[in-house]
């Protein structure tokens, strides 16, 4: 696991995702709503000719959407990720084949470098976490005076909403 994360704000808190997982970030466009889709799906967007499904991260984690989400992080598809030997138990999107997924966040912040010792991964499987918020956190990292929560990608698209 690299020690560099793309940090972003969500629900007033600081979150991060491994930089190796992020393809790009951009301003949130208007989404095309998907009929009958669960509330945490923000909709579809046109990414230079590719149709990408975007998850409303705030809704997913906190159960309600943000008022003014500004950015979307486009995650790499599984095919784009470096070799699985990348790291043990790599956190990746499950059951999504080779698709790209976007996550809607409040605002994207800097890329932060975190020392190995300052990162702590949660133990145990996500299923143990009944609390929605902790279910999507796969660890925390100390960034200056703040605690940054690391988003769990595998839980992101896990169907057991």
């Amino acid at each position, binding site marked *: 696991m690299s020690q560099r994360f793309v940090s972003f704000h969500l629900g007033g808190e600081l979150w991060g995702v491994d930089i190796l997982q992020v393809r790009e970030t951009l301003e949130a466009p208007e989404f095309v709503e*998907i009929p009958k889709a669960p509330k945490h799906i923000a909709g579809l967007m046109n990414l230079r000719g590719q149709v990408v499904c975007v*998850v409303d991260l705030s809704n997913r984690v906190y159960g309600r959407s943000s008022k003014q989400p500004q950015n979307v992080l486009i995650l790499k598809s599984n095919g784009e990720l470096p070799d699985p030997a990348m790291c043990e138990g790599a956190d990746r999107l499950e059951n999504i084949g080779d698709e790209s*997924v976007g996550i809607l966040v409040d605002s994207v912040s800097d890329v932060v470098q975190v020392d190995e010792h300052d990162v702590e991964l949660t133990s145990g499987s996500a299923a143990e976490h009944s609390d929605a918020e902790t279910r999507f956190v796969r660890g925390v990292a100390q960034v200056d005076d703040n605690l940054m929560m690391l988003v769990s990608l595998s839980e992101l698209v896990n169907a057991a909403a």
Partner: protein
Amino acid sequence: MSDDADLMDKEIFDEFVAECRENLAEWEDELMQLADAPDDDHAERLHKIFRAAHSIKGAAGFLELKNTQHLAHTAENLLAKMRDGEMAVTQQSIDALLKSTDMLAELLDLGFDGESKDVSEPLGMLNAILNGEPPPAATDESASAAAEAEASPGHEAAHDDASADVEASTVDEAAPAVEAGADDVGAPPTKTAEPKKDAAKKDDAKKDETKADDAKKDNKRRAESADETVRVRTQLLDEMMEKIGELVISRNQLLRRLAPHAAELGDVNSTLHQLSMITSEVQELIMSTRLQPVSLLFRRFPRLVREIARKLGKDVVLEVDDAGAELDRTLIEALADPLTHLVRNSMDHGIEQPEVREAAGKSSRGTVTLRAVNESGMVNIEVIDDGAGLDPVKIGAKGVEKGIISEDDMASMSDKELANLIFAPGFSTAAAVTDLSGRGVGMDVVRTNISNLGGTVEVSSVVGAGSTFTLKLPLTLAIVTSLIVELNGRLMALPQVNLEEVLRLSEDKDLRVENVGALQVLRVRGHLVPIVRLDHLLGFAPVGEDTLQRGEGYVLLVQAGDFRYGIHVDTIHDSEEMVVKPMPKLAQATKCFSGTSILGDGRIALILDPLGVAEDAAVAQLESQVDELLDDEDDPFDLEMKLVKFSNGGDEHFGVPMSLVGRIEKIPATAIHPMGKREFVERSGRAVEVLRLDNLFNVDPPPATPSHYTLIVPKSTQRSIGFLAVGMCDVVSASEGIERSSLASDTVVGTVLEGEELIAVIDIFGVENKLFGDAGDHANERQARRVLIAEDSPAFQEMQRSYFESVGFEVDVVEDGELAWEALRAQPYDVLVSDICMPNVDGIELIRRIRQDEALRGLPAVAVTTLRSDSDRDRILDAGFNAYELKVDRHRLIDSVNQVMSRQHEEAA
């Protein structure tokens, strides 16, 4: 040489192995065909098989896979003899050759590790047939010696007194080997043609050489006429595919942007046109590279069926009917497993033992048929067996036993629905999995696999006759011409291939959406076509007024599979060729869409799947309801009234006039949410309050808590309410009219006798008022609402009277405008329904007076007339009527009246 082998590029190795596999597949294929019909194309097939074996031998030789080479060579020998007619095609030889292909496949998988594998079994089988030859050892030696000689030209083989036969055949084959086998490396013709014998045989050699030369020429010709192919990395093809998709989008954008400037462009227009044509052609060509014949998928099954049949002791023959259907390459790989499972399942559980079949009067030989057909951007693959079929009763029972469905469910499910339970998760137990039916997978896994590919699978069956499993798959990355439409501000696209017609709604009776009971239908050339409301189906939040109700917008006449129905939309845009991108996994929330596309202007449109919509909207049911209702529909003199009859699961029956029913839906009990003492269910983004019959009336609650209810939602009520019924609803005719008997109350209009049963007709508005009645303004509504009908024709008078009474109104009838005027001033009425053409004072004059009168001006008034021109209509509405209806459409009339009255309440409130 072996050092070189270690250093050999892995890529080259893989390529050779891949090619060997292809040859092996062809070998097996042709062999199976031969096995089924030994006299058919016999020689040609043997030649193909021979060539395949020969190529494999050559490649193996080059790769230094001695074991493989050896086995291939021996097989090749046998094949040569069979080809030349020296040996017959027998079961034994076929078995030996099959065994060899199996072993060769294993060896190819093992690569260099295969060198240590024991290949004596197939080898022994082959040699046993090649009987009459020198003992195995000698033959092996000379065979491998000759092979070595070919592979390494510089190597001089110590050649003893191997039989002339073997030698001659070696020489004969050596030459063709060089020409026909493109992968035989490094053995220049001259060297191999050289006999390895001593000088004494030189003359013979010369003769052989000429023979070899001729053979060489023959084979060269044959090699050239065989398909010229080239190997291309699939990744490259995928990239091309993506690029062409982008090219199409760019072309669309370009055309769109330049379209308004066509006049100024002059010559450029034709260049643009050419560019567009070429783009389309390239697109087609590239798409065809991805498509492979479905027969590739089917090719493994003849053998599979043969072997399983043998194992099970059943007599089964496989028929393949692929009509040249094609499928995207990736799908072919992905379908192999599920299809195998289905075929195995058919043979295991479907086809009966021969004795059983005979006892049932069937032929002892069972048939499994594989069929594939391309249809409108999809591929339909069917696995059909003429076996025992699926017994819905047994399956249903099993479903109940496993807790998948309840007994109630089972009672309300159709045979087809029950049969499809086999796909439900948890249905198949481990016990049912024999080594025959696959690696511990059940039908639910098959279904999951197919859905992941964006397809569907279902089964239909007749007990005793057989079953048909149908897989439907999309051709991914298809480019489809579609019509872009808009509904509630959302852009959607309908594939042109499913679009029959576009009809513009208007007030003209021929193109008006009519309400037939709970359905909306459109009359098209004498047929009633049910209309699907996508906004309801998909929960679109309403935007502005309901355009369908206002008779605005368009109806797309759609044809898909067996279904024919209409889809209502607000606006029609252009038709476009669009690249269909499959729906992202996370977005697959409904089966109504087959994918997405990016339009010329960059916006995303959801592409409708008409079959999916048909299923979701239960069009089949709608269609049959329409048929049912068609019989005495719209005879204006027909006084029969239809009721929707339902119950609470007990013996008491309730009814609601069909014209007052907005929707009937089946909902799961879990969808009902209590809020305090009230209960709600969410429908189309709105909360509908559900009313239980045992709460409203003096009846028992349902005997057992049902898993599903039928929700009956009335039209034109102020509140959003629905009645909860248990079980199915029926439509019955109330030919005798409603009897306002002792049962009448503020919530019951009266009773109807249908056969032996008494149906209590619910006064919907009475119920509404009882539950929600606001005190004050609406206190009057506790009593029946009063309508004054002004109509000069006695027949219409009676018809309307009866009709309004049946829906709970108190009716007074007068025959001209003057009498109406007097009546209105004498007593209070809630609404006026008036004809226009009447003696004395006509409808126009009447309404004018009403609107000018202090007391009466707010009276809701509906004009009912036969005048149908636009100008008449305008005149009537201008004069002051709130709504206007044609005499013959009584369903719309009651709707209009209700709407007009509730609008008045809104305004007054």
